[in-house]
């Protein structure tokens, strides 16, 4: 059963251009050149009940704007959408009781008070009966391993702990739809893993529908089978993650630091050099041969330090563009 239906949804923002310096400011005082930023450009998609969909895209792609329209925070410029039969931006109470919006960048916690006070406030707002509230709180706090922290002022908690508290505050009323906007942003790898693992188990147990936005490929891979890739406000891809996974994993990036000057021509044998300076180089390695080539680089060159990283989401999207060649919903 389809729970979210989005048709031709568009959101524009108006802004004014300003030239550099005081001349530009004075000019702007009398005449302003109005510009329109198309944050979301006529996107359409459908999501079935119980699905976890990943919204993948670089910063400024339109992921959060789409999520804000679906949670009723923003009105669209045009187009339509229904979530569980409700038009989100009508902001009906019945709808607001059905979903939760969790943002890695916006908090609902009272910073100077322990999280338990925000939980109690949410209990009153959502009119959760006492027994039910105690059971859910106990369950969530145990699962997220923060029982010992709920009486400590939020400002004293780490970023990861704050996010766990945010998640608890958002799930107390048992929402059937979850909008997760970059829930792991700024967190260390261990915290990211814990949050991901919690979301995965929770979704499985409660059968909630989740839209997750992230520009971390790992978030999407761990949680979602389906993905909507969005770039510059348009849907670039809408389908199974496995079909495009290779686009994001064709290359590995290796950052190298050498103890002395090296022959960069020799290094080129193993991959394409992205950046090079006197004692440093960044090289892109093919994922199929990167294990052997890494060993060779480390033995043949005077490497004193190195790091490995995944290519950016932007690069994966670029590859998608090349593959789809203007056919977004392949």
């Amino acid at each position, binding site marked *: 059963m389809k729970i979210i239906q989005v048709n031709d949804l568009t959101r524009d*923002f108006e802004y004014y251009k300003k030239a550099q310096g005081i001349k530009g400011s004075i000019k702007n005082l009398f005449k302003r050149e109005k510009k329109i930023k198309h944050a979301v450009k006529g996107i359409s998609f459908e999501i079935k009940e119980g699905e976890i969909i990943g919204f993948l895209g670089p910063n400024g792609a339109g992921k*959060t704007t789409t999520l*804000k329209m679906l*949670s*009723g*925070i*923003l*009105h669209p410029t045009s187009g339509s959408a229904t979530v569980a039969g409700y038009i989100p931006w009508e*902001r009906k*109470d019945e709808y*607001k*009781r059905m*979903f*939760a*919006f969790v*943002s890695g*960048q*916006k*908090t*609902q916690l*009272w910073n*100077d*008070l322990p999280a338990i*006070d925000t939980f*109690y*406030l949410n209990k*009153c*707002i*959502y*009119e959760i009966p006492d027994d039910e509230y105690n059971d859910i709180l106990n369950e969530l706090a145990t699962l997220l391993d923060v029982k010992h922290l709920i009486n400590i*002022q939020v400002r004293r908690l780490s970023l990861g702990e704050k996010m766990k508290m945010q998640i608890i505050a958002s799930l107390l009323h048992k929402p059937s739809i979850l909008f997760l906007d970059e829930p792991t942003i700024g967190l260390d790898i261990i915290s990211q893993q814990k949050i991901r693992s919690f979301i995965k188990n929770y979704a499985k147990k409660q059968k909630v529908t989740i839209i997750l936005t992230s520009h971390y490929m790992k978030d999407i891979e761990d949680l979602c089978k389906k993905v909507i890739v969005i770039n510059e406000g348009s849907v670039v891809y809408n389908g199974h993650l496995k079909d495009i996974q290779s686009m994001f994993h064709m290359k590995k990036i290796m950052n190298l630091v050498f103890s002395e000057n090296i022959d960069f021509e020799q290094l080129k044998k193993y991959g394409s050099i992205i950046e090079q300076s006197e004692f440093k180089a960044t090289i892109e390695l093919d994922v199929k041969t990167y294990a052997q080539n890494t060993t060779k680089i480390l033995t043949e060159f005077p490497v004193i330090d190195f790091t490995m990283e995944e290519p950016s989401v932007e690069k994966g999207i670029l590859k998608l563009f090349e593959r789809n060649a203007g056919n977004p919903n392949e």
Partner: protein
Amino acid sequence: MMKILKRMHWYLKLLFLFMKLSLQSQLEYRLNFLAGASVEIACLFIKLVYLILVSRTGESIGFLTPDMIMIFIGTYIFMTGMWMLFRGINSIPSIVLRGELDVLMTKPGSLQFLQTFGSFDLAKTFPNVIAGIVLIIIGWSNTTIAASFANITGFLFFIVCGIILTYSFSLIAALLVFWITSRNAVLTLYAALWDFNNMPMAIYPKTMQLIGTFIIPIFVIFNWSGLFILGQLDMFRIIYGAVIPIIVFVLSRMMWKRGIMRYYSANG
């Protein structure tokens, strides 16, 4: 009917919870709380110096004796406390510009209620409200005005009207952020208009009285309760004083709805 009562109970419960959380939050910083209260008490003291001066001269302003003036100044101080109470309103501009309305927008209930009653500044409110009430009681008891049921009811009625006007005017001033990003000038003007009322409107020329009553009805907030017990309000002004809070409140509500439509949110 039961549904409405249940809803009112829900809002009332949230209101007290917000007050409790605001107080708890402010008490976390004991020094700040005490410093805030101390500054307010110091400001109050300066206002009271005016009052002592007026009382000492024994001079009347028109029909107003120094004790009657005390009632008006007490009302002004009380209302200033109410103005400071609505921290949720005063924080609207920064919250809107930082895109922090997002979370509240997803909560059930009236967004206007959740934002405007979501936090209170009790450290600044208490000294003003208490001092205002004390001045009103002292002033009233020193006059020959009867503490009859009609007088007390009428006085309290116009105090409530004044609180509604304070809420609505403060909201209108705060909501201008949706149209004017930098609204310092508007706020300065609003604060100046507010301070016009630290003396009864009777001291101002007739034209200013008319402007402050009918064009920007800010005099209604502070003067109507006092003028009522002095028997200085004719039927037209009594009705006007009762109706204008509703009109300004509806106006502020309309502005709120329009403003929220213009809310752009913000990332990060």
